[in-house]
């Protein structure tokens, strides 16, 4: 179903910071004046189970939090690739953490795949827990380039800040991760 909303799905397994990534994007959108709706979905296990969330960016109107089709997907763990691929609407983009998922191939021609070695990039930042922020940085960049959602560096940093709320000491490394992801995405574009 076609609407004016942009639906972005984040998937992975527990512990990868999926909810953080989604929430950060939603916060960034909010600071950019876009109405975000962030919907997590949990399994029953406390750890290790599949983890997923959806961020819907809309302009002014209340979107449905139930979105079957997405415009963008972030895949942190290979297991959910196929499913997300199917759930994307034509013209959608799919950003995968290639450090974990390895080489994935699209089976649909109307989508664009962007492999980002987020874990490796994060390890270079000496903090393998920021892979989620790296990939979100890349996503933000791609949202601008492909789906017309402009989130400035400033808004993204603001999103990070609000999501980290209280854990101020983590700002530096996360901002670095963000920039690193953005840059990587830009480099993809220029390739």
């Amino acid at each position, binding site marked *: 179903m076609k609407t004016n909303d942009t639906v972005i799905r984040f998937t992975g397994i527990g512990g990868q910071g999926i909810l953080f990534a989604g*929430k950060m994007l*939603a916060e960034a959108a*909010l600071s950019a004046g876009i109405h975000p*709706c962030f919907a997590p*979905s949990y399994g029953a296990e406390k750890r290790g189970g599949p983890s997923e969330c959806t961020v819907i960016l809309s302009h002014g109107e*209340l979107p*449905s939090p*139930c979105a*079957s089709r997405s415009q963008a997907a972030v895949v942190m763990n290979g297991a959910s690739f196929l499913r997300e691929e199917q759930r994307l609407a034509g013209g959608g983009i799919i950003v995968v953490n290639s450090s974990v998922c390895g080489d994935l191939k699209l089976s649909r021609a109307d989508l664009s795949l962007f492999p980002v070695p987020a874990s490796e990039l994060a390890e270079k930042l000496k903090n393998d827990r920021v892979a989620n922020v790296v990939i979100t940085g890349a996503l933000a960049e791609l949202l601008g380039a492909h789906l017309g959602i402009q989130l400035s560096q400033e808004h993204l940093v603001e999103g990070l800040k609000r999501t980290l709320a209280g854990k101020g000491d983590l700002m530096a490394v996360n901002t670095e991760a963000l920039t690193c992801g953005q840059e990587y995405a830009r480099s993809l574009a220029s390739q």
Partner: protein
Amino acid sequence: MKDQVELVSGNRAVASGALDAGCRMYFGYPITPQTEIAEYMSAVLPEMNGVFLQAESELAAINMVYGAAGAGRRVMTTSSSPGISLMMEGLSYLATAELPCVIVNVMRGGPGLGNIAPAQGDYFQAVKGGGHGDYRTPVLAPWSVQEIYDLTRTAFDLADRWRNPVFILFDGLLGTMMEPLRTREPIPERAAPSWATTGIFAHGANDRAPRSIYTLHMPEGALTEVNRRLQAKYREIAREEVRYDEHFTGDAEILVVAYGSVARSALQAVRVARQQGRKVGLFRPVSLWPFPEEALHALSEKVRKILVAEMSSGQMLEDVRLAAAPSCKIDFLGAMGGELIYPGTILSRLQEE
């Protein structure tokens, strides 16, 4: 000034709404998907000189609500489906003693232990009365984080206005999802009402008669009298507290009726259908009790068909059938056990026409 927009979950919005309404007492027991409310309250209430107490069970929680409400404080409990079932006796007592309080059910998949996915299977329990006897509670059904906050504040006012427990009913999706929330100026807790058991000495001159909160009415005719008074009150509430929301209903030939998060899917479907030139509209009950019978009846006389969309086997459906004009065809789109209703599914049903 609290005029800032924050990204918060529906659960958090319940807590903020209650606090901003001057509620300083919370009793509850953990249960997914709404434990966040209790957790938030446990962190902030002690700082505000309020009371957070994790009750030993939902049974204890609802009876603590009875005690605190009877003592004249603004008080809230929150839970999810199985936990709410344990409150049914207490709820009937609260309604009988006419104690104002707010009870939030963030519904999950049932019946039984079920699962923790969103559902709307507790409509009957909230609206028709899951406890014994002829009592009613206003039931408010928000559809966004903002409205959760707003209606939570409203709920406290309704509770006081009518001396009655008030239910807030929404599914776990609304509870856990985050949206921008604009809070309003918080108000301080209102003073103890004139019937509250505050101890005689609380009354300036110390001359008032003892007060009692009770629900046993043995003398012949006494309980009948109580019921008459309650029913008269319920009729008044039914007249004065109807809340609903309409979208694109002006010239609609098909009307979707949905509440809570399903209404959001419905609105999206309706918007798209409108773009396709279909004359469809959305009617959203905001108060499930009192159900907006008259408004819906009026609309039902104009439309060709009503589509009820609901995450249950068809509970609100009955109220729609009771309200709608006999001429109006009624279709149903249900989902159970944590299944969601997507805009696309509603749209296809609208396109079938």
